[in-house]
């Protein structure tokens, strides 16, 4: 039997990134994927005959370090053009953010455009301060190494460089809600709605919830093509990005096994020793790296007997009930969104008419009900990559909020109703779209959980809120990728900095393992 230095559980983009990085350091690495296909929630799949889509549909935070370390461009990563964001409106023309998160606006008044440029510059400046903190391993509480202390000092220095007044605004705004920040600067409901939507996307927060601005910083700390805040629809869908990472991993010598669900992580005297598969097969390795959810990792695979109760409680307390659903429509032909030009249709279309609207959409989610008037971001990936749909036909891919994981009435009863509510909204902005639908696939958080083995259907593997970030992500004791179980590491979205196709948790975890000689 072959033996490995490291086993990576989960073949999503973070697992593959960790595996590839470890393999490049000379380790013998095996990736185990439960599904029959590699890629996790970034894999492109057929949802109707000839129509393909992936749950993740926009690339806006793939980290340049990951691209460089894994030489992804050499392995076929093709980056498309920067896509605009279009804030749709029913009574007004749409407002479009061109370039990297609105370098210029169209459809806004001159005074609004000027106010936006000022706010945009401020937000990017502040996100830039947080960016290094989001890229590296979080500092260890009570035991900061010299390296970590100096990294913190650097952040302090970059803060100081902002100048006194700017630093004051930074400290004041850090934990504010996005709605108040938008109100302080802007008038246009479309723009405020867009910011509110982006800040709360993927989290159980409304724009009026304190700390919601962090969500926007998280987004703006991401970059595409070296441009902060920029986004693109990757050519070939998100699956193509994963394919490039997979090629890099294989080139580095990583072994990959699909259809290999892990049943247990073998622990011997508090140390990870390998894994046992569902089939009963045991594979041993000195290092086990889990790219899957921390909850599943510790409670299902390791078992509570191997870890102390305090840590078990911390893991159990991680909040991870998703609120985002994913819609895939197979359309006879491309839909027409009112007032949107051809370039806009190739970008990201957002239905979030105002900040208050987003807040109202959030209200029911608190009580286990879906939004009767949901907000969403829509892309038409087949316009940029015709291979995703049959000739002349079109794929619509949308992230829709709010769809609470634990729907009170149950998703079996709720799903058709929620789909109807979504279609009713779409019809308002793209009249006639309903008649084009050949097939609709709605993935609720419950579906995402079942299909991608993400507990709670949460794409961040745990709420990305202030109390679950940095040193608290996923929980104290496991925030630095190493865990209380020696030889067991975490490398998924549940770890710092969080989800989105960035590859950062995977890269950081691998570096930590290498540093610890694991």
């Amino acid at each position, binding site marked *: 039997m072959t033996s490995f230095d490291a086993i990576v559980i989960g073949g999503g983009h973070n697992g593959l990134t960790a595996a590839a990085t470890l393999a490049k350091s000379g380790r013998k690495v095996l990736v185990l994927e439960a599904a029959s296909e590699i890629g996790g929630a970034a894999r492109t799949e057929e949802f109707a005959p000839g129509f393909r889509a992936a749950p993740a549909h926009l690339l806006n935070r793939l980290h340049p370090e990951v691209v460089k370390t894994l030489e992804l461009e050499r392995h076929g990563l093709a980056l498309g053009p920067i896509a605009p964001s279009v804030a749709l409106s029913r009574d007004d023309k749409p407002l479009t953010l061109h370039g990297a998160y609105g370098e210029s606006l169209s459809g806004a008044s001159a005074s609004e455009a000027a106010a936006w440029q000022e706010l945009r510059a401020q937000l990017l400046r502040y996100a830039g301060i947080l960016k290094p903190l989001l890229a590296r391993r979080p500092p*260890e*509480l*009570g*035991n900061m190494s010299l390296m970590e202390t100096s990294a913190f000092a650097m952040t302090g220095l970059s803060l*100081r460089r902002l100048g*006194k*007044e700017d*630093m*004051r*605004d930074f*400290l*004041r*705004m*850090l*934990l*504010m*809600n996005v709605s*108040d920040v938008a109100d*302080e600067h802007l008038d246009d409901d479309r723009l405020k709605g867009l910011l509110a939507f982006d800040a709360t996307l993927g989290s159980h*927060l409304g724009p*009026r*919830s*304190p*700390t919601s601005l962090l969500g926007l910083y998280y987004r703006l700390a991401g970059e595409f093509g070296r441009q902060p805040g920029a986004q693109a629809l990757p050519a070939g869908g998100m699956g193509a990005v994963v394919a490039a990472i997979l090629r890099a991993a294989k080139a580095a010598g990583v072994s990959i096994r699909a259809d290999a669900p892990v049943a247990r992580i073998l622990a011997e005297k508090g140390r990870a020793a390998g894994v046992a598969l569902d089939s009963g097969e045991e594979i041993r390795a000195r290092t086990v790296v889990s790219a899957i959810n921390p909850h599943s990792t510790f409670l299902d695979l390791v078992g509570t007997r191997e870890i102390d109760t*305090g840590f078990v*409680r911390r893991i159990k*307390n991680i*909040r991870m009930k998703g609120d985002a659903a994913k819609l895939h429509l197979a359309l006879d032909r491309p839909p027409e969104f009112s007032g949107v030009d051809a370039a806009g249709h190739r970008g990201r279309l957002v239905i979030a008419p105002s900040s208050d609207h987003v*807040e*109202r959409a959030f*209200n029911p989610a*608190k*009580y286990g009900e879906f939004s009767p008037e949901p907000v969403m971001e829509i892309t038409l990936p087949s316009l940029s990559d015709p291979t995703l749909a049959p000739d002349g036909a079109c794929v619509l891919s949308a992230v829709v909020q709010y769809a609470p994981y634990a729907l009170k009435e149950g998703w079996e009863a709720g799903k058709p109703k929620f789909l109807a509510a979504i279609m009713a909204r779409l019809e308002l902005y793209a009249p006639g779209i309903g008649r084009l639908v050949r097939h609709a696939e709605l993935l609720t958080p419950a579906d995402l959980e079942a299909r991608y083995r993400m507990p709670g259907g949460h794409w961040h593997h745990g709420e990305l*809120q*202030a*109390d*679950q970030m940095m*040193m*608290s992500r996923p929980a*104290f004791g496991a925030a630095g990728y190493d865990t209380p179980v020696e030889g067991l590491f975490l490398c998924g979205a549940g770890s710092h900095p969080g989800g989105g196709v960035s590859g950062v948790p995977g890269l950081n975890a691998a570096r930590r393992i290498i540093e610890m000689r694991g």
Partner: protein
Amino acid sequence: MKTWDAIVIGAGHNGLVNACYLQRAGLDVLVVEKNDWIGGAATSRSLTPGFLYSNCSYVCSLFRPEIMRDLELPRFGLQVISYEGGAVFTRDGDYLANYRDHHAHRREFARFSARDAEAYDRYARDVTRQCRFIQPLLMRTAPDPTSFRPRDIGELIYLGKKFAGLGAAEMADTLRFWTMSISDFLDEHFETDVIKANFALSGIIGTALGPMSPGTAYVLLHHYMGEVDGSVGAWGYARGGMGAVTKALADSFRASGGTIRASAEVEQVLVKNGKARGLVLAGGEEIFGKLVVSNADVKRTFLKLVEEKELPDTFLRRVKNFKMRGSSGKVNIALDSMPEFPALPKDSPCYRGDMHFTDSVERMERGYDDWKAGRWSADPFLDMMMPTMLDPTMAPPGKHFMSCFVQYCPPKVEGRDWTDADRDAFAETVISQIANYSPGFRDRIVHMEVRTPRELEAEVGLTEGNIFQGELTFDQLLFNRPVPGYAQYRSPIDGLYICGSSTHPGGGVMGAPGRNAANEILRDLSQPTKHMSPAHDVI
């Protein structure tokens, strides 16, 4: 013409605390008050014969014991009586009792859930630990993190050391606690709705946030860090109503030689060459002082009492952006007999404390949704009590004064100003909430005073009716309170200070802002502060 050493605007508790400390340091201090009574929002008023209302603030818990001792308030008649119980009524006709005794309280929880009774010890420990961490910060001036002055750096180091002293695991818990919602925090401890609702209320009182909003765990702390007779988290009544607090302060102030002028509304702060010189009263009278201390909120002080041209643009922008949306109302009721609550045994100690009708966190949160939409809660959260159960001085024998704090209540109704009809409808919502649990309640009402944010603003001068003179969110705490760069009780105008709840550490009848401001003023004057006992560090 006389020039005072210091003039304090507003005879609320913080203004008086500030004046007392300045006067005791040897300054000649004048307090001016716009109303013909003193006390601001800490007052007892007789609005119907025989009854005294604590008509704004209604509970004494946060008032700092150091201040009480320094200013000899017990000698001037202040007496605080602890609650003896409390209850949350449930919709199914039962109730959850609160007892002062930890073990009795725990046994009560066991009636609902054995697991929650177990968890109560852990909860009490976790919260107390957070209180211990924050309490010493109340009586310190927040450092300016952008400053290189030794004092600010020293204070930052103090905070850092205090944090580091917690140990790694507790540091992690503290970091999380500060940004959590009270609902999430309670979910980590308890499983029973009514028990969670019982604790959640402290996370929302006076705050324009729902229990599910991040940051409300900190608000809970703000209500818990008080103490009565050394018992942390205890709440109590001031004998004779909340006016007894300000009356004792006023008496202490006068006894040390201070002067108070009521019915003297300030129109403007006199500023000459960027320096405060005194006041102009409504009617034109000028009063001169070497320095002016404003106990009015930060918006009222700088947007109404000072001319715009005297202030830098950045400062003005920040004052304008200061959030002080009111979120609560108050209904004060005179009752001709003891109301009946069939759920509670007749002689239960639960009557001698605060009673609530909101038995789930979801109901509280839905009440907040109404507020966000610009309406008062259709199913309001009430913090209801009859101080006369413990303090017979506030009503004729056999009769009772009932105080109902009501949340949520917006500063404007769907974007427009409050009308009298709105106010009456609001009162009706409150009364019917009580009557649901107390048959015949309406018939016992002799007199009622209804206060919406409109009344709070008009009478006590709280902008938008915000009882904390500014929301308690992260962007408005510590060195951000009231605005970044001016968290140290000073203002851009030389000789003009602020000492109200708009400043660190915020609202509640605590007195800390008034004392901290006095400390800063005396430093600026190079006056001794020996008469201020050191803030105690250990609970």
